[in-house]
């Protein structure tokens, strides 16, 4: 029996449910190329802003037993150059691309949406939840149901593409935020962004390891949090979820699917298992399907929803 990882996300057929998330390898068109060659089914750009940003000074990453802290600081070449990289990739590939965009107000999000409308991009992701620019921009928009609702509502009115809302795990009640996004017309949710933020200290120099002091947490240690939040959200909304957070192997990916995710982001694991990680996880999912006699990805059962 031929197993297949082919599935559908927001009406587009994809060859693998694995997604290169925003902020990982997404600076250059060639970063998309190599991720796709290694088995990613969807790729996401760096979160693009109206003007280019050099990001925070280093160190911007710090590793520890369970994962990573990062505080890249939304470095990106700006929406025009970022879209040019996406379009260069799309010239030679039909793999879907998510353009991730970041702004702090509706007006800028609308401006960014107009740029994305003119590109070869397939989906628009609104990054409402970068945890690493607090000093500059304050509490992420994803902390407010009202902000999330208003921005998505406005963007949906002009976006030619399906809109994905990227949510922060660092809120009191992610389910109400997710519901606000859904009711405003979001086509899908992307969750979770990095956790925390957290910090690490160099004990010899008595300094925070990250120059930004604090950074978002990713890697295996956040998987249980991601699963819980995705499961709670899946139980409460009817739009698909792009699930991510600490997925390193096929077993993790299956857990994400069972928790309610439709497709799965793989980011930090690119460090742990190389850029080949997408094909490795694809194969591990196929092995799981073989063992359990699931023919298609959608045959893998989901957990029974909460409260019913």
């Amino acid at each position, binding site marked *: 029996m031929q197993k297949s990882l082919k599935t559908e996300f927001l009406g587009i057929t994809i060859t693998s449910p694995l997604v290169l998330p925003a902020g990982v*390898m997404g600076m250059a068109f060639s970063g998309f190329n190599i991720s796709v*060659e290694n088995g990613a089914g969807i790729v996401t750009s760096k979160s693009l802003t109206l003007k280019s940003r050099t990001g925070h*000074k280093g160190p911007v990453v710090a590793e520890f037993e369970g994962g990573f802290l990062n505080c890249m600081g939304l470095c990106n070449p700006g929406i025009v150059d970022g879209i040019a990289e996406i379009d260069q990739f799309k010239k030679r590939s039909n793999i879907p691309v998510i353009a991730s965009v970041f702004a702090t107000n509706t007006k800028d999000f609308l401006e960014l949406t107009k740029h994305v409308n003119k590109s070869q991009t397939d989906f628009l992701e609104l990054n409402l939840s970068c945890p690493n620019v607090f000093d500059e921009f304050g509490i992420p928009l994803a902390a407010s149901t009202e902000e999330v609702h208003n921005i998505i509502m406005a963007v949906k009115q002009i976006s030619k593409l399906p809109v994905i809302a990227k949510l922060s795990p660092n809120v009191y009640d992610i389910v109400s935020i997710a519901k606000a996004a859904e009711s405003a017309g979001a086509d899908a949710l992307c969750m979770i962004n990095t956790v925390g933020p957290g910090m690490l200290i160099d004990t010899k120099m008595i300094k925070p390891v990250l120059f930004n002091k604090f950074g978002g947490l990713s890697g295996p240690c956040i998987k249980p949090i991601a699963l819980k939040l995705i499961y709670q959200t899946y139980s409460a909304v009817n739009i698909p979820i792009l699930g991510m957070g600490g997925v390193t192997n096929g077993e993790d990916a299956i857990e994400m699917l069972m928790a309610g995710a439709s497709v799965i982001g793989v980011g930090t694991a690119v460090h742990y298992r190389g850029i080949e990680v997408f094909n490795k996880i694809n194969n591990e999912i196929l092995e799981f399907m073989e063992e359990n006699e699931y023919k298609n990805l959608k045959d893998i059962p989901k957990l029974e929803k909460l409260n019913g």
Partner: protein
Amino acid sequence: MDKRTTLKIAKIVDETRDIRTFTFKHDLDAKPGQFIMLTDFEGGEKPFSVSDCTNEEFSITVKRIGEFTTRLFQKCVGDFVSIRGAYGSSFFVSKNKVLLVGGGYAVPTFYFFVKVLLKAGADVTLINGARTKDEHVFAERFRELNIRVINTTDDGSFGEKGTSVDVTQKIMSQNKFDFLYASGPEMMMKNLQYVIGDIDYEFLFERYMKCAIGICGNCTMDPLGLRLCVEGPVLPKEKVELLTEFGKYHRDASGKRIKF
């Protein structure tokens, strides 16, 4: 897992007015061509090629070019800095007759490499070039290694007059080599490509690095998507020949393409 370690500067040697070697007592276990990330936690973490490495200590040789390196030049023996690595690819160690072509502050990484090549039994010729005498480094150290060295400066203020590329062309017309290595400014390596015929080679590249562990994508090279911090900084001929950005553009800290 985390390879970060915080070390005291054990030794500082002035090479030129703007080039300085910092030595640390630490078993880095690096291979020639690899680099470390270094920070003082005061803003900035930068990649530096390893210019010497033994079981007890390693060195980096740094050119003062900006805010970060200016601050590094103010540090003294005994001051702490924090490093992680060694990272990246390393030079193939040939046992045959090899030509090394170096330019400016990218030359010192060859000091570590030549020692390894000699141990492997290679026959080494080095072209050690710089724009001018004040930027020419490691002439004395390479002399002590008893290899064939041709020192050259663009303006003739030290050694032969001419670029590393000019000298390479001349040397290669008189001698046959089995393998060529280059470490220098990108345009030097680009111009080398036109004069070295079909010899097999490896080039050491420089790009803006941030995470150094293959995630952030800032040092990705087009069109192969090579992460210079993981698949580089040393790239073999078959990959170099496919690079469309080689000698044309690189990306800055924001990812914007900057023309050479």
